[in-house]
């Protein structure tokens, strides 16, 4: 984990004092609502349907156990005893009091956490693959780069009032779990033919009302130039991005309107001014950041364990969980474990204070005190000894955290929706629950196989519905909640945007519709084809025909 030094601590303290004063002036009537708005947003504070919502950053998804315990403390003392893990590796509290937010920020600072720039028209939390640093399929650990970007973007004086929000993702693994291609800037870590590390730079990806897959503007950016190149991209966007229409203000629209070649030329011309300047990264700085992510004291272990083998044969629940939620690790004798926060009947991504403390204890006991938050709204223990899997599974099972659905249909990604969010057109959580109830059977889910289902309560697409294999979008039709379904989205290295199936459905029809879609897939699939592969082969028509078939 990155640890603050005196500079980081002091600046964070100054940030809190600044926001405390801003809040005081707002409450005293000295600061108009419109002027307070971007200030509170850039400190993570929304005003929502029922209460304010505070979004806390979990930088690139890395969380320590003292931090998780602090989140539990905040949930209990300042909120209603739970928190929501979002699709951007952040944590949201749905019921804080506006006047207490500076105190919450001070509590967070005690464990080196913050809510800086988690909202507003600025550079947001940088995200990455949750298996960074432990995946056996890794090109380079993305975390030092994420931290370098986090620091560069934090309180960047030039970029606090961009046309719109700005999200950066970094991916250093072969199988992209960071949805890199649907970010304003996506960075794939690559090595050139001499083995030097650099970045393939994508720009202009994004979801929301106009989903776009990012375009490559540079195949290889040597790592030393990362920050000056980012400065150049964001400067062009800040100057030329549209400000006349909120819905056309993201960088994706600028890239589309200019054309990617013109945009690239502008960035490269701007970059010539900044290249090789003081922002050029040094090996000393990279080494410093990298040192925070050095390996924990792994033991030298064999990669087979008789107890685990034995349990796999005779314990069905363990075997299911092992099959779905336990992943290969770069170190022999270790495994990555996903805690799927998708137990049927609980809102996707929600965790109570008690569960957070329980998970923190497990992470201390089994995973060197560290966790990851995933954009699929799950938690991950990164470094579990193979031999500890049976004990870990038993502990998780008792707390209903051993749901063996990771990567299956019921591992639904969902925004909080109309139950909480003032932007939403429709509810999301009850839809997720209805689908989960319909499919709540391991054998059934396993037979369907790996697939994603994403739900967003509105066009803002916080549930990333465009890139779900099945994407469900809440829409408003004359004051009533309806749901539009799209198929074929994907957010991995082969990112694709879902295609709309047809007219939208009422809430109660959704489980039947999903069941019909699955029925078509099961009938048409060849061999071990995954849903997305079958869809890509047969297209949307067979699904459309069956789902909208007239019943005589």
């Amino acid at each position, binding site marked *: 984990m990155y640890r603050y030094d005196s500079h980081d601590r*002091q*600046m964070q303290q100054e940030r809190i004092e600044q926001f405390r004063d801003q809040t005081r002036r707002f409450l005293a009537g000295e600061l108009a609502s419109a002027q307070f708005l971007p200030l509170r947003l850039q400190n993570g504070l929304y005003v929502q349907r029922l209460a304010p919502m505070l979004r806390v950053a979990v930088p690139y998804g890395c969380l320590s156990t003292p931090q998780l315990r602090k989140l539990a403390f905040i949930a209990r003392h300042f909120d209603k005893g739970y928190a929501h893990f979002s699709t951007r590796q952040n944590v949201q509290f749905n019921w804080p009091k506006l006047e207490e937010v500076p105190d919450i920020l001070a509590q967070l600072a005690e464990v080196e956490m913050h809510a800086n720039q988690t909202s507003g028209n600025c550079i947001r939390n940088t995200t990455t693959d949750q298996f960074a640093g432990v995946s056996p399929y890794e090109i380079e650990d993305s975390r030092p780069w994420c931290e370098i970007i986090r620091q560069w973007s*934090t*309180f960047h004086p*030039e970029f606090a009032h961009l046309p719109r929000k700005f999200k950066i993702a970094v991916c250093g693994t072969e199988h992209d779990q960071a949805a890199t291609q649907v970010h304003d800037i996506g960075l794939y870590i690559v090595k050139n033919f001499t083995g030097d590390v650099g970045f393939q730079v994508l720009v202009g990806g994004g979801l929301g009302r106009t989903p776009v897959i990012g375009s490559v503007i540079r195949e290889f950016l040597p790592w030393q130039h990362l920050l000056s190149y980012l400065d150049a991209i964001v400067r062009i966007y*800040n100057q030329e991005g549209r400000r006349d229409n909120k819905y056309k203000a993201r960088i994706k629209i600028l890239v589309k309107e200019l054309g990617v070649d013109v945009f690239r030329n502008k960035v490269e011309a701007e970059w010539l001014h900044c290249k090789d*300047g*003081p*922002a050029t990264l040094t090996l000393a700085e990279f080494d*410093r950041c990298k040192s925070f992510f050095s390996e924990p004291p792994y033991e030298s272990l064999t990669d087979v364990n008789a107890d685990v083998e034995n349990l796999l044969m005779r314990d069905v629940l363990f075997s299911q969980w092992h099959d779905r939620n336990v992943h290969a690790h770069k170190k022999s004798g270790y495994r990555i474990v996903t805690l799927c926060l998708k137990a049927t009947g609980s809102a996707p991504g929600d965790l109570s204070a008690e569960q957070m403390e329980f998970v923190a204890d497990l992470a201390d006991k089994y995973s060197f005190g560290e966790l990851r938050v995933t954009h699929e709204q799950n938690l991950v223990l990164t470094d579990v000894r193979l031999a500890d899997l049976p004990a870990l599974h038993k502990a998780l099972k008792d707390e209903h955290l051993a749901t063996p659905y990771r990567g299956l249909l019921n591992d639904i990604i969902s925004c909080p929706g109309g139950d909480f969010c003032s932007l939403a057109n429709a509810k999301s959580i009850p839809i997720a629950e209805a689908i989960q109830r319909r499919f709540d059977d391991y054998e059934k889910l396993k037979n369907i196989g790996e697939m994603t289902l994403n739900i967003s309560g509105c066009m803002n697409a916080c549930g990333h519905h465009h890139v779900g294999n099945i994407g469900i979008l809440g829409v408003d039709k004359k004051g009533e909640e309806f749901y539009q379904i799209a198929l074929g989205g994907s957010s991995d290295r082969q990112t694709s945007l879902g295609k709309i199936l047809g007219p939208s459905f009422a809430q109660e029809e959704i489980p039947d519709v999903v069941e019909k879609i699955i029925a078509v897939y099961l009938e048409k699939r060849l061999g071990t084809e995954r849903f997305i592969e079958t869809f890509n082969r047969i297209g949307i028509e067979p699904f459309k025909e069956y789902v909208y078939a007239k019943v005589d």
Partner: protein
Amino acid sequence: MPRLIDTAGVELKNPWHLLPRDGALVAPDQPPASGKLEDALASPTSHLIVNATLWQQHKQELLASGKQIAVWLDSDQHADMIAADLARIPLVALNFPGFMDGRSYSTAVVLRKHHGYKGELRAIGDVLRDQLFYMKRCGFTTFDLRDTVKLEDARRAFHDYSASYASTVEEPTPLFRRRG
């Protein structure tokens, strides 16, 4: 009247008179006036800030007028409009039509960093307390404060942070090169 301050929060005398861009006012509380050449030349004031468009069209006449001439850029006007003339311009004013329009931060950086502009860089328009620190970091040296901002608040604003992570105009060396 807006008050002009420097980066220490000290109130300055303001000899400059600003002519609006035709059809666009700097701030809602500015009286309407014309940005035409004849008005500029007929103006009794000795220090004029003209919009970059007028500057581009009538540079020679303006310079020959015997007045001190400065130039202001609106947030949709690019630094390139005056880049070649910066040696002759003692003051560049950059407009914030609304405080959330952040384009002028980048214009300031471009003027200072790319074009090496050394003269006065003034923030005009919707200049509020909570943006002063970032403006200073981007190279602004004077600030036409909105009426609603208390002077003592503005003074404090310049000390909101003791450092910045990124390379800025004010402190080009990024924090990572200064960490002990």
